[in-house]
């Protein structure tokens, strides 16, 4: 892959943007920690 002069500032969106993220963030979810190792 090309490594030329890419600058990363946070948050850094890939394939999306602030607005689309805000919409996804508005949807709730619940993930619990796994109870044991795979």
């Amino acid at each position, binding site marked *: *892959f*090309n*490594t*030329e*002069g*890419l*600058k*990363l500032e*946070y*948050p*850094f*969106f*890939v*394939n*999306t943007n602030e607005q*689309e*993220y805000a919409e*996804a*963030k508005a*949807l*709730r*979810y*619940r*993930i*619990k*920690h*796994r109870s044991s190792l*795979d």
Partner: protein
Amino acid sequence: MTTNAREITYAFLNTYYQRMNADPLKIHHLYSATAELTHINYQCEFDDNLEVMPTIKITGKENISKFYARYAKKVKTLRVKIDSCDFQFTGANNTSILILTLGEMFWLGTPSYKFCQTFVLVPTATNPKIFDVCNDMIYFPPDRAE
């Protein structure tokens, strides 16, 4: 050298997540022949009531290729927000790069899930400026509503 590693890290993350979107059938080219991948188990439907984001462990470039090809349609809708990344040198002669990144990801129509992902990039034998992913491990921590 450190500046280099940072640029490689940034470029890798950008390429990796962009390719999910742009061309899932070519993602496996980023991996080494014996790479290990712990990824979202796309076989499971994930709905809003998901309590555990299912993951699956896959070994070897060929199996990784099949995996991404099988779920290409879903993979293509991946969106990523990177909140942090850090790196260290690792491996033989400290020429490999260990990456730790955190952020959130979502797919078309899904909520946004926090994730934590670690990679090991190893320089190829033929060209030390080209790196292969030899490890790719993701974990989804629980939501704030614990």
